[in-house]
């Protein structure tokens, strides 16, 4: 996705250099400028000018402990969600590679269907499942694993569970795509050469799946950083993430300056991670 944008950008500049054929794209470009570039630019300026000119907004965001907590929370949740989706996605992708394609197609249909279901509906469904009187707690109590309901919602646990579920397809798909290009004969060759299952996993399967893993992880991590609905519904008041902070500052306190600054911190972090990823892995990965 990102790579495609990049490719399009270079193509555009190439065309621009030749000084022709940009005309048909003009309406779209005007629209992009008015609807995207201009507002972002205005917000960017406001983050430096309201309420006073200078870096004050940014300074308070990185020094005030309330805002710092939000930043730390955001990173913690994004990291936890990335790790938990990865741990779930790897075996799922492996399963999808080895089962007959009929079964794999069915599982994919379920995954896609859930992706197409309204996000709010899915998040509320988790709310119902995770609450004190919800199915999960009732089941745990029925098993006798706990006598009182475990708090699974309105806290970090709920946020991580909900977001793991929502992010899962975004990491399963790239890992599966990479894995399905691997020749099973590679594993056979390793096995007959004397490698045990563990060695085959760590020396062959894992390194060869790395491009898919890193693409999936970066996708989930970056999307999680800016996630709003799920943390807002499943999280507690103390588990605010940066997107919620932006909403709060602007909607409730009409503090456009500070809100914009928070949004731009998120953007800077995302860009930094993206460029670090490009540096490390490269846009076009070697085959």
């Amino acid at each position, binding site marked *: 996705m990102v790579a495609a944008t990049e490719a399009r950008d270079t193509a555009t500049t190439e065309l621009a250099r030749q000084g022709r054929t940009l005309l048909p794209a003009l309406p779209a470009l005007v629209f992009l400028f008015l609807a995207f570039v201009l507002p972002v630019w205005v917000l960017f300026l406001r983050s430096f000018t309201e309420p006073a000119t200078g870096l004050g907004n940014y300074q308070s965001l990185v020094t005030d402990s309330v805002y710092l907590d939000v930043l730390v929370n955001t990173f913690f949740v994004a990291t936890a969600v990335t790790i938990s989706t990865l741990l779930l996605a790897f075996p799922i992708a492996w399963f999808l590679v080895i089962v007959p394609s009929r079964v794999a197609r069915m599982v994919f249909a379920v995954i896609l269907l859930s992706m197409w279901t309204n996000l709010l509906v899915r998040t509320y469904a988790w709310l119902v499942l995770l609450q004190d009187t919800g199915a999960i707690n009732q089941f745990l109590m029925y098993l006798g694993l706990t006598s009182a309901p475990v708090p699974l919602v309105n806290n970090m646990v709920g946020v991580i569970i909900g977001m793991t579920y929502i992010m899962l397809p975004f990491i399963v798909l790239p890992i599966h795509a990479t894995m399905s290009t691997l020749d099973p004969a*590679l594993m*056979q060759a390793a*096995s*007959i*050469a*004397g490698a*045990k299952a563990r060695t085959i996993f760590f020396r062959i399967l894992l390194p060869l799946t790395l491009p898919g893993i890193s693409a999936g992880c970066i996708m989930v991590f970056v999307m999680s950083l800016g996630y709003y609905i799920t943390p807002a519904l499943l999280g507690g008041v103390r588990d605010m993430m940066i997107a919620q902070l932006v909403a709060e500052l602007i909607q409730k306190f009409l503090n456009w300056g500070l809100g914009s600054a928070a949004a731009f911190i998120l953007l800077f972090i995302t860009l930094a991670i993206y460029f670090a990823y490009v540096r490390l892995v490269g846009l076009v990965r070697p085959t």
Partner: protein
Amino acid sequence: MNSSTGSGGTLDAGVPQGSQPARSMAANLLSIRNLSKHYGDFRAVDNVSLDVRRGELMTFLGPSGSGKTTTLNMVAGFDTPTAGEILIDNQDISRVIPSRRNIGMVFQRYTLFPHMTVAENVGFPLMVRRVAKPQIAERVTRVLKLIRLESFGDRRPSQLSGGQQQRVALARALIYEPRLLLMDEPLGALDKRLREEIQLEIRRIHHQLDVTIIYVTHDQEEALRLSDRIAVFDNGRIAQIGAARELYDQPANAFVGAFLGNSNFLTGKIATANGGRYQVTLKDGSSIEAPARLALAPEQPVSVMFRPEKAILQSVSETSGFTNRVVGRITENVFLGDSATYEVRTASGELVTVKQPFGPSETKTRTMDEEIAVSWPHDCVHIFPIDR
């Protein structure tokens, strides 16, 4: 040819190999007993039994789908047999996982690990065996020298040609000195010239290391070039096992006769048997003689086989030739430089091919549509019963 490694024998020439249990000295390294693999009702491998001798290079030769790979995969441990036993050194290995079988394998597809260098690929089996690093490096160098790619250690597999990749795969399979080396059409994807070059290399390495090899191919020329013995597969069964010459001169059945080399088949039936010879009446009415190798009753329909190079062409008026003779017309005439092949259509409509080498005395070429007699000696004939 034999310049690279001076001291023959094993890769680890310095290591004494004295203390082996007595049973490992049995003449047969591998014994397959009544091995079967069924997929539902389909019998991919059907009651196969064979022995592979220590130090031998045996090829599995057969058409596509005849069960060669399936048999090999069961020996390697990638497939579990439906029935039967696989013994190595008289020990049943069916329950041993592939990584513990101490077998080497080279696959038809390229299976070098793409994220490792050539040296890392070749050293991989030693790495998983926890051999010390300096020793790995030394043995990798030695085996890369054996396959003549000593300067390629730092390359990635993607920087090698197909032939080089398969040689590296061979090195990876040889470096841990497996007791048995399996090769499943390793040269199938290469062009003819390169294939022949690597075939020579495989022969050299086989002689140099005394390693026991099973080599799968559906190319009969490759089988003839490489093997000590050939096992011919047909529909999941073994049609015949033997040295190349044996299979060519004494095919056990029509399938082997047809699959190995070129052959003529005429149909007929047994007329009489006397003095160790059968009189066979062919479809066109002519009568021929054949050695009575099998006990067959009169009236038994048979397929009569002989090789194109065992027959000669004569004018119909000449009567001097061999015992057996049919008459027909030349329908095809191909000049091949050192020889010519003719196709003759007999009165019954059957086709007979004759290969006529141009030796010092034979210079004649025949023309199309010429009426001609094909004659061949009776002891070159094989007859196979046809089910009634």
